């Protein structure tokens, strides 16, 4: 992983202050950007353009997959997460930990110690995504069985995938699993529980996610389809990693008894999750990596994957262990987590409260809206006119797809020209050819 995780590069702001439409947890530092166009080429939704040698992101197109963060060699694209100081606003602070966190440490550091270190960081309570894995598998299976007409059901846990579907595959929105993801389910459950047990007001309890990716930070600040107040912030694994390592040294000498849920860590691995859902009457498929996800979604559109009942889709390599705000390589992290799952002991968790909330419909998600980015115009006649113009410009362009213009492909430049966002002079190759002809 790139050292986007190194705390030095992180930009701390209180992001609650600047909620706009389509907020994104990414920021481009113009001073660092060389205009190399590496990010332009890897963006799956063609959201980035370089103009006047500086990159900028179209907030309507960005899905927070983090590809650009990983590729930029100049630390010009900075993932943002909340500042740890936000914790001070709350009386009782809870951390909800993404399973990928436990794959970030060398094998001499146990699950329990890694969790204890997080508590030391300033939390009164820590809960893991891993706690509700069995419950999730159960409700996913229920959902699939109740919605056979919509097969295949597409997993909705990865916010980057959900946004990808909203912008590029809106026809598949009805196929999304319309219940909350594990970290949000835990949030609802814990908020209720703590309020009662500790006699606290809603605003005295701060619930924070420890996340592996930009997509989850964005989702916390701008959730899709939620009915109620969820989390109060998100901290990336990369950002807290340095501090946690130090705390680990400290707690290793004073370990305390602590509950762990190794069998549930499967959530970080897309393949294992699919295997768990798969059963006699449910066929599940696992897909990870954003390019693969797009290929599969296109096939789902064609109804060519109707033999599957459930498809686990994760934007990152191997699932959340590949998130761009982790520090460890996705394959190494996966192997460590697999080891923990294999060697770990079953932990009985009392889930009857969760069951009750589930039966009361508390985990339902509002239908998601399409945010189509490809549409050239609302009116089809105008769209066709624009399309024809695009094709005209396309025949004038050299077809090298070199991105030197700052648009990802020649087609994208032609489209940018027609939409008034660029001119044909942005094509450096044409410019060079013309200047030669003049000589």
């Amino acid at each position: 992983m790139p050292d986007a995780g190194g705390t030095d590069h992180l930009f701390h702001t209180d992001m609650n202050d600047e909620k706009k439409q389509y907020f994104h947890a990414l920021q481009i530092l113009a001073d660092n950007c060389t205009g190399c166009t590496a990010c332009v080429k890897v963006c799956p939704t063609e959201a980035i353009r370089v103009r006047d040698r500086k990159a900028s992101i179209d907030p309507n197109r960005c899905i927070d997959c983090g590809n650009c963060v990983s590729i930029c060699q100049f630390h010009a694209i900075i993932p943002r997460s909340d500042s740890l100081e936000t914790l001070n606003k709350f009386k009782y602070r809870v951390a909800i930990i993404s399973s990928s966190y436990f794959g970030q440490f060398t094998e001499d550091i146990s699950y329990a110690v890694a969790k204890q270190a997080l508590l030391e960081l300033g939390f009164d309570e820590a809960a893991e995504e891993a706690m509700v894995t069995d419950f999730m598998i159960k409700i996913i299976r229920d959902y699939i069985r109740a919605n056979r007409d919509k097969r295949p059901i597409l997993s909705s846990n990865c916010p980057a995938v959900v946004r990808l579907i909203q912008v590029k595959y809106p026809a598949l929105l009805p196929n999304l699993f319309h219940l909350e993801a594990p970290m949000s389910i835990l949030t609802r459950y814990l908020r209720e529980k703590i309020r009662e047990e500790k006699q606290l007001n809603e605003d005295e309890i701060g619930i924070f996610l420890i996340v592996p990716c930009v997509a989850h930070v964005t989702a916390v600040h701008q959730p899709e389809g939620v009915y109620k107040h969820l989390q109060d912030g998100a901290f990336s694994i990369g950002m807290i990693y340095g501090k946690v390592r130090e705390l680990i040294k400290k707690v290793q000498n004073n370990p305390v008894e602590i509950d762990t849920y190794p069998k549930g860590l499967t959530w970080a691995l897309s393949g294992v999750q699919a295997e768990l859902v798969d059963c006699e009457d449910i066929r599940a498929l696992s897909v990870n990596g954003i390019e693969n996800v797009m290929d599969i979604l296109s096939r789902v559109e064609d109804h060519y994957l109707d033999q599957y009942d459930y498809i686990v889709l994760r934007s990152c390599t191997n699932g959340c262990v590949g998130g761009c705000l982790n520090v460890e390589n996705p394959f190494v992290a996966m192997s460590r987590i697999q080891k923990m799952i294999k060697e770990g002991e079953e932990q009985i968790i009392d889930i009857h409260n969760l069951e009750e909330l589930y039966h009361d419909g508390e985990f339902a998600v509002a239908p998601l809206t399409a945010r189509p980015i490809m549409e050239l115009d609302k009116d089809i006649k105008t769209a066709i006119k624009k399309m024809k113009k695009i094709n005209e410009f396309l025949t004038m362009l050299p077809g090298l797809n070199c991105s030197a213009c700052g648009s990802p492909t020649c087609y994208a430049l032609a489209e940018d020209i027609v939409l008034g966002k660029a001119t044909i002079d942005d094509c450096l190759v044409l410019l060079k050819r013309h200047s030669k002809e003049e000589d």
Partner: protein
Amino acid sequence: MAEYWNVSPGFEDAITRYFTDVPEAEVTLESAIPEKDFNSAGRGSAEVKNLLKRLGVDNDILRRVAVAAYEAEINVAAHSIGGKMTSHIYDDMIHIKFEDRGPGIADIDQAMIPGFSTADELVREFGFGAGLGLPNILRNADALHIVSAKNCPTLVELIIYFTPI
């Protein structure tokens, strides 16, 4: 040559008018479909899909076009010695033509029965050829026209309107 026609109720007049006038398309896309090349089969329909998304065509219509076009494209790749796909796009409908170089359909009516398939071993290995092809296209198209005979080229053409009539 045997001929097969199916026009969904309500679309008869529009279809007759279309084939009488043969208006010039706003946008035309063409792509080759090489024989038994399952790596590139599906590219043509993916291109059509992207174009329709750019034109803002309704989601349900998009999926019907996607299914019919993909199915027909795979059919050509699987059963023929290659051919091409031509899409004519208008502001109210799409007309897609699949023309191959043979060996033709011996009995079109039989081929329209769900579950009937002549797919050979290679095709089955790839997971195609479950016999859903033509009936699936029929279900999604507003008009379907097939011309073929044994040892002859096949023409499959379909029309889908963007708004219900």
